[in-house]
């Protein structure tokens, strides 16, 4: 059985059930026209049907071993670390400002996640922040959040 397919199927079943339950108190039909619950309920029922079909198929299918991609084994920690860094960036840039938080994010990904060398990473971070400044601040005139220190 394919765990990812099962997860997808279960996810669809859960979301469909939530939509069905959450829209139950809403009006289904009002006078001679559908109400707010009409379409979401039918869509949720379709979701339950498709989720059940996908789950059944995933459980019955034998799991396959994915062929190893050319270039070596996958770096499984990278997506999770990068995602956590993104969350930290979103949380910190109102406090540190986008320039500092953005540069810190780029350096974290390059030095810690993908383990690149220091000097090229510093150059990449500087280039990225320059592009952000030129495109968003100078060209589009967008007000980028500053840090509590004013930059």
């Amino acid at each position: 059985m394919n765990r990812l397919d099962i997860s997808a199927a279960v996810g669809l079943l859960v979301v469909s059930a939530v939509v069905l339950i959450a829209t139950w108190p809403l009006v289904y039909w009002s006078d001679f026209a559908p109400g707010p619950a009409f379409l979401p309920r039918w869509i949720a029922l379709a979701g339950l049907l498709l989720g059940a079909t996908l789950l059944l198929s995933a459980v019955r299918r034998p799991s396959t071993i994915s062929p190893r991609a050319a270039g070596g084994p996958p770096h499984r920690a990278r997506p999770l670390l990068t995602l956590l860094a993104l969350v930290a960036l979103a949380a910190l840039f109102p406090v540190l400002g986008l320039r500092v938080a953005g540069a810190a994010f780029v350096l974290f990904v390059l030095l810690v996640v993908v383990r690149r060398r220091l000097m090229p990473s510093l150059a990449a971070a500087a280039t990225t922040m320059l592009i952000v400044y030129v495109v968003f601040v100078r060209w589009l005139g967008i007000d980028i959040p500053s840090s509590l220190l004013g930059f």
Partner: protein
Amino acid sequence: MESLRLLFGGFEVALTPANLTATFVGVVVGQVIGALPGIGPSLGMVLLLPISFGLEPVTGIVMLAGIMYGAMYGGTVTSVLINVPGESSSVMTAIEGQHLARQGRAGAALGIAAVGSFLAGTVSIAALMFAAVAISDFALEFSAPEYCLLAAIGVSATASLGLGSTVKALGVAVFGLMLASIGVDPILGSSRLTFGVEGLLDGIDFLPVAIGVFGIGEVLATLESATDITPLKVRLRDMWPRWSDWKACRMAIARGGGIGFGLGLLPGVGPTAATFLAYAAERRFSRHPERFGRGALDAVASAESANNSAVTGALVPMLTLGIPGSGLTAVLLAALTLHGIRPGPLLMAEQPDLVWGLIASMFVGNVILLILNLPLAPAFASLLRVPYAYLAPAILLLSLIGAYATTRDLFVVGLAIVFGALGYFMIKADLPRAPLVLALVLAPIMESSLRQSLILSQGSARIFIERPISAVLIVVFVLSLVWPLATAWRRGGRAAGPPMSPID
């Protein structure tokens, strides 16, 4: 003749300094994105989508459209030189290109692909002109029932006619429809599925979803497997096809272009499927089918012509009916909507500068791409030496800033990250992402048209059958759902199909 007059007017719009610059920027960005493996054209479009808001609508749209067809040219470079498809519609080019590269004919492959893409792209833009006018005139007969069914067909066909598992694609589309239900009811104004979260009262906007699933998710998935690559070196003098190459490939270009444009008109087919079908058709027509899979130049010509013309074909339903048939045209539709422009039959009458300016800019863009690709392909190839690891954090940062820049709302940034995680999961689980964004774009049209239709008919569903066009559309909708599912069931009840390309 009227179309030609309007086209000349379009060139006046397209050749202004701002629009010419936007076309150039769009096609160059598209070429670069297409050339870099792990970055699809949809990512490029969503990255530039927030930037396009600071521009005039025509300027923003020609730039985004330039990325769309520019990426088709760029995908050839990486397919031939490192045997990795730059984007999903270059898979067949990679298969043939690697053999041609080993035979010392990488330059010929790149050259004939550029010429084929230019010729097929140019002819398909001309076909777009005439098809768009004809369909727009016909679509003036449409009313709420027809729009409801067209939107439903747009969602169902994209889910069921695309590559990969039909059940998975329909499941993703249904999930997208549920997401689109969040917010405020469009007719009665009551809140729906917001769970008391104030940020959800405006619904789930297209931008954070697109940035998340196409941008952040794609980068996360590519980071997992990214390794440094070394492309083959190509000399400038090897780029020009020989006369014998041209003679061998001209019919392949014509067939590939025709098949690509025709299939591109259908929602859900897209350039990737068009490429596969054009390749298969060319193999049947070829006098030497045994060469296919071992370095056939006409196979490259056919595949590359098909993917370019399919992208152009997909613009026809988007511009004339307001129904995008792919993830790429969904982003373009969203850009138009966010600029306050509603695609549909009235678009050509109400916004002639936009439509004809876009069409004219595509002619100009194809010329630019031919000029860039023939002598400058070795220069683009050098971009492949930049390790993906250095590009990834920049792309992620620009994605988040793009999400923030349009709304100044951290909630939207958070949504983009959540959908980024979802996009990563979808790639790993082989779930197509285009049906999600298409459903998000089309659901409001579908729901409001459905309810308007039933209000008009005082609650009777017969309005959908009594009108001849909507009766035909109902049949098409049912077929688009039933036929792929029945085919899958006949194949042994397998609900899972062949795996998707990760960039589709």
